[in-house]
């Protein structure tokens, strides 16, 4: 017997044909929600005023309008930065932090475009750093001209990262071995490889756990090096590495949207069956794209050692994983990755002084989690609907 009456129920339906702007809106709402969730966590971690903390993080990461005004004034009048003002300091630090994650982010963008889940950008970056160091300290003489030295280091970093990316690519293409597992595991191999060389191995300077300071020719020039010409540049560590990232983003954009290879990558990424149908060599492209992805991560490693001016036992782990977040928030768009990387650089700089130290990683995690979650929710709609006649239960049906 059917029970008369009105029932309400929730139903989740997937939405198709979403307009393009929905993605951007969902990302913005996602970041906002992430800040709200993060605010509660900051509160729990002891911050009495989470909003104030965010403002502080923003100031630390980008500087205040007053800082910028003072900086610009000092720049044009050729004077020092006034006392009590930070001028370009915060943004300079942000760019320094942004340049490696921009490159690892782009490494993830190109791999993820083909649905190759390379989460080994960290290891590829370590190997790039290692190879660049080998060139800078142990292969080329100290007197090598700076441009030659830096170019050689970049080539070494790229080749090492590429080789390290091709290994899982080859295993995936030929033997269909899951690249998530291999790239993740190879990270640890790379960490230990670098640790062996600089902590206990042939490159170690005893207790210093470091290769020692690189020759000047093997380091990025920094703004502060030009303090005589531009007084306001005092203490600014910004270096040309950021341009490597921007150039790489432009190159990836060209490859993806203007080249034959990029067309193949997009076809494979969207529909491997159609790629096979068109006669595109899928296996070859897996190896090539993993190589390019590794090369970008390797370049990030070169960039980092040239900026830090040494390779030591404290070389930072995790920048490759931040690259995963950057790529995802940029919705796998290389140009968007430039801006997301700078935002994340600011986040890293702004949270440096906050205790406990895990706040930065926590916020990163919350942002990724909430933004991806929001995007997913945007693809579904929840309907509250009236159910006029409901299905009888099994027991009732059996009476018939």
């Amino acid at each position, binding site marked *: 017997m059917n029970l008369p009456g009105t029932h309400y129920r929730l139903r989740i339906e997937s939405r198709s044909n979403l307009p393009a702007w929905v993605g951007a809106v969902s990302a913005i709402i996602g970041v906002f929600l992430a800040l709200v969730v993060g605010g509660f966590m900051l509160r729990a971690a002891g911050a009495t005023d989470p909003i104030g903390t965010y403002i502080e993080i923003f100031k630390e990461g980008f500087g205040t309008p007053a800082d910028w005004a003072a900086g610009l004034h000092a720049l044009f009048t050729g004077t020092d930065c006034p006392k009590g003002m930070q001028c370009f300091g915060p943004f300079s630090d942000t760019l320094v932090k942004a340049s490696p994650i921009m490159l690892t982010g782009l490494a993830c963008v190109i791999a993820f475009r083909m649905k190759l889940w390379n989460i080994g950008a960290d290891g590829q970056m370590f190997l790039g750093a290692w190879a660049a160091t080998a060139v800078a300290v142990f292969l080329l003489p100290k007197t090598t001209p700076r441009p030659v030295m830096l170019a050689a280091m970049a080539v070494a970093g790229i080749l090492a990262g590429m080789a390290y990316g091709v290994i899982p690519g080859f295993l995936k293409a030929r033997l269909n071995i899951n690249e998530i597992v291999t790239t993740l595991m190879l990270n640890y191999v790379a960490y230990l490889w670098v640790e062996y060389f600089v902590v206990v191995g042939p490159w170690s300077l005893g207790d210093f756990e470091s290769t020692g300071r690189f020759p000047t020719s093997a380091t990025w020039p920094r703004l502060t090096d030009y303090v005589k010409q531009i007084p306001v540049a005092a203490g600014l560590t910004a270096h040309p590495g950021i341009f490597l990232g921007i150039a790489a983003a432009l190159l990836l954009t060209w490859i993806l949207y203007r080249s034959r290879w990029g067309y193949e990558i997009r076809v494979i990424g969207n*529909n491997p069956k159609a790629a096979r149908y*068109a006669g595109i060599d899928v296996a070859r492209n897996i190896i090539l794209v993993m190589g390019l992805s590794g090369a970008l991560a390797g370049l990030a490693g070169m960039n980092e050692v040239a900026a830090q001016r040494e390779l030591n036992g404290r070389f930072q782990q995790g920048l490759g994983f931040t690259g995963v977040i950057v790529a995802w928030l940029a919705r796998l768009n290389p140009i968007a990755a430039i801006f997301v990387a700078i935002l994340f650089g600011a986040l890293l700089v702004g949270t440096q002084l906050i205790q406990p130290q895990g706040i930065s990683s926590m916020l990163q995690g919350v942002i990724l989690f909430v933004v991806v979650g929001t995007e997913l929710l945007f693809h579904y709609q929840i309907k509250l609907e009236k159910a006029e006649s409901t299905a009888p239960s*099994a027991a009732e049906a059996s009476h018939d």
Partner: protein
Amino acid sequence: MAESADAFEMRGIVQRFPGVLANDHVDFAGRVGEVHALLGENGAGKSTLMNVLAGLYHPEAGEILIHGQHVVLRSPQDAIANGIGMIHQHFMLVPNQTVAENTVLGLNRPRFFLNLRKIEEQVQALGEQYGLSVNPRAKIWELSVGEQQRVEVLKMLFRGAKVLIMDEPTAVLTPQEVEGLFVTLRDMTKRGHTIVFISHKLDEVVAIADRVTVLRRGKVTAASVSARGVTKAQLANLMVGREVIFKVDKKKAKPGDVVLEVNRLCCDNDRGLPALREVSFQVQAGEILGLAGVAGNGQRELAEVLTGLRCTTSGTMNFNGTLLNRHTHWLELGQQLAHVPEDRAAVGSVQALSVAENLILKRFNRPPISKGWSINSIAVKQNAVKLVKEYNIATPTVETHVGMLSGGNLQKVILAREISGHPKLMVAVHPTRGLDVGATEAVHKLLVEQRDSGTALLLISEDLDELMSLSDRLVVIYEGRIVGEMPAEGADIRRIGLMMAGTKAES
């Protein structure tokens, strides 16, 4: 014999997918204690209709009655609560759990404590009652495919299913297992269950069904006829259609040189079993060779072998003087060999790319589209604008993603791409499946024009009307063998139907 009551009844079901009318006001009912076969070619709408009954799809129009009472089925849970259970072609079992564990999977009782011993006993008892013996403690991966199917049946019986929908249950079984299944099904009908048996295999339908309903292009062509008084040939005709919907206007073919010569070709299907057994035929320039056959007799594999998507096990394919084999560089061969694939969305196009980008899928690597390493976006756009106009593709812009297009327009995109490459050979698989009359007519016209311009065409279809009206010559395939060849003009449709059903043609 007294007519027994309807266990369920579906009235006027309409189910639409983007570009396809899958069910067009379909009526279907199952009586208590009968095996009702739902027959039709692939894409006729059988699975769609049954997914509606199983609560997976929500139809636009139509109503469902269970024992005479209106119900709204919003989910498979609703369906099973109404005693309707569906066994899908691909089993929904967890391989490393036991039979008993799989049986209770997804049930919301027992609420908390799972007394597996008790469940095992119940499953054992149920199995013995219905002659479905499986060890309830065996893990699914240890079982044969036939045994796994029994677990699926048990799962549904355990949930109290009175109506059991089986989607092509014999496709995965050996002949012996099929016998076993039939015994079980008869036993179940004696106990008052209703079985809906979805199939396109005529032998089985005649052997097991009490009544048959035939679907064709989303419509019922034969409603609940008794399986006793019907022959296989009649069923074949009902399935593929006898009435000519529209006549294709074409001149007599002028066949030229042999473009494709296939000699004693063999290949395996996805499960590693022989799909083609020594197939030999020729296609000449300027003719359409039609390949007739009921689905699953090797047509798909043949198309894949010819277009480089599947490896042969023996035999040769001579295309225009060169042998096609695994050393063939298919990308280089490019558009000389055109392929209109069976699945236009999943194989023939990239849904997330634009119309323009899909139109260069086979020519992105050669001028004028490519210039060295780069792709000339102006040429891409020109190519698209020209083809959209020439082939009347209805799309808002050439930048629109093809995923937004209707089935007919998507097929036009594929045909425009394949035809505009001036192929020597075109393999077209079900080129009009799921399309409405207008789009079908447009596609037919394009294919005939293609023939008249000197292309050799191999047309693979289950639709006999289409084959008879388009082809110049017909070959019939059955179980991977070519069982007959004849000119299409004046061919006896009954004789073809018999050949498709596996009966050797006399004379």
